[in-house]
């Protein structure tokens, strides 16, 4: 049995939305190199809708696949909807992740929230700070 589902392998080998956005409206970065995974998400916002999203990831196959899937899931969606994306939804969309890899989907959820909150902050838009915004910066592996 393979370690990863076909969907994970597809998103890992052919990641969607990989790259950066110059002059992005919001940038989110979570994880740290010491733990072996960093995710960086760039968003372009038009009329409260995520018009474009790109990512860069340093990490294992499931971290890259989770970033790719998560960006697909929020592209073209209103910010309010993107904020409701859960790690569970990302993992399910990938046809599941091995238990010890679930934290990769957590990273994706946090990176997106981080990018959106960065957009709100830099544009002076008031928002309700998510509970996890601090731990997203000080990422550790205890989330799963």
């Amino acid at each position, binding site marked *: 049995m393979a370690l990863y589902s076909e969907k994970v392998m597809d998103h*890992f080998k052919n990641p969607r939305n990989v790259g950066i956005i110059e002059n992005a409206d919001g940038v989110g970065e979570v994880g740290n190199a010491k733990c072996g995974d960093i995710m*960086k998400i760039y968003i372009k916002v038009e009329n409260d809708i995520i018009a474009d999203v790109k990512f860069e990831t*340093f990490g*294992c*196959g499931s*971290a890259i696949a989770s970033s790719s899937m998560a960006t697909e899931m929020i592209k073209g969606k209103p910010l309010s909807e993107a904020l409701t994306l859960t790690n569970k939804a990302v993992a399910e969309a990938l046809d599941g992740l091995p238990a010890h890899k679930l934290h990769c989907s957590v990273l994706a959820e946090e990176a997106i929230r981080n990018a959106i909150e960065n957009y709100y902050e830099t544009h002076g838009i008031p928002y309700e700070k998510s509970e996890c915004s601090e731990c997203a910066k000080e990422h550790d592996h205890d989330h799963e």
Partner: protein
Amino acid sequence: MKIYADNAATTKICKAALTAMNECMEHVWGNPSSLHTIGQEAAEALMRARISMARRLGCDPSEITFTSGGSEADNQALRSAAMIGKRKGKTHIISTAFEHHAVLHTLKRLEQEGFTVTLLDVGSTGTVSARQVADAITPETCLVTVMYANNEIGSILPIAEIGVICKEKGVIFHTDAVQAAGHLPINVREQNIAMLSLSAHKFHGPKGIGLLYAQKGIRLTSLIEGGAQERGKRAGTEDIPAIVGMATAFDEACGHMEQNAAKISAMRDRLIDGLSKIPHSILNGDPINRLPGNVNFCFEGIEGESLLLLLDEEGVCASSGSACTSGSLDPSHVLLAIGRPHEIAHGSLRLSLCAENTDEEIDHILRAVPKVVEYLRSISPVWRDLQTGKREYVIKEA
């Protein structure tokens, strides 16, 4: 094309061992403890294998105990030497920081039972000197256990010199020779080795079989109680086909050791030369005193598991010391022991060769690795930060 470059993990069984094992399973299926002829035929096969292994190791057949593999042999060696020490009131053990977990975890357990353990620093190339061992020995020391060659980074340790020191000081010297057996010369008498562990599947023998050599006079502690097999030191009906397969494979490996080492190390050096050209890469382990088949690099800005998955797609089977491949959160303890920071240790690649690898395969690996490293760097925020000067390179360019 599938290129197997993970021979330090396990090897493909050799034809001679396979034939001998099939023969054994079909015709020598008796229980060596039985008195009848069918049992005695098995006892003879067992004795022949024991004699063959002993001759190749330079010891007496009675000094060999067959085990389920290297881990069991390591466990039994350490526990036995510790018990001998305890009876004499000696409870200090010396080892190194980059031993196999079969040794390190047993030492942890012994520490919980009241032993004191000194783990010697292995420096940046991953070795210890006989001097370091000599300086660490105290009147309380009952055991020195130092691996012959490291499984991850391939460094070869000065076993014979350490053996002399231990003999002089009257301390039991055990070596985990799992990666060395069949690849490097072993003569336990000449090298003053009191105990040695090896495992058959690392030299093209079957899995699930290994042995512990223990010099006459060293009383072994049983880990498995039961029947009187292996002089009462390892209960359980002997796996004759596996034991015969191991002896056959060891004979083959030792008989061709020099020519294999020449061929394999030439391929190894081509890989090392080629992979060194990747910017911000660094070789792990001793560049000279190195197992013939071992290549181990760290590549800055990428993570090892994704590297392995993409190499597999390119037909290259390799391994890594990244946390994601170990199932734990920390990267390889070996890479940390030689001073690689966590973020660098996550981006490691081990290629381990055997005589069946070819120059064409090396060419293919030399094309595949730079391509995959470059791709992963192109999507890595860490690499971007390094390139834009936001983060400082750990692996500097010469």
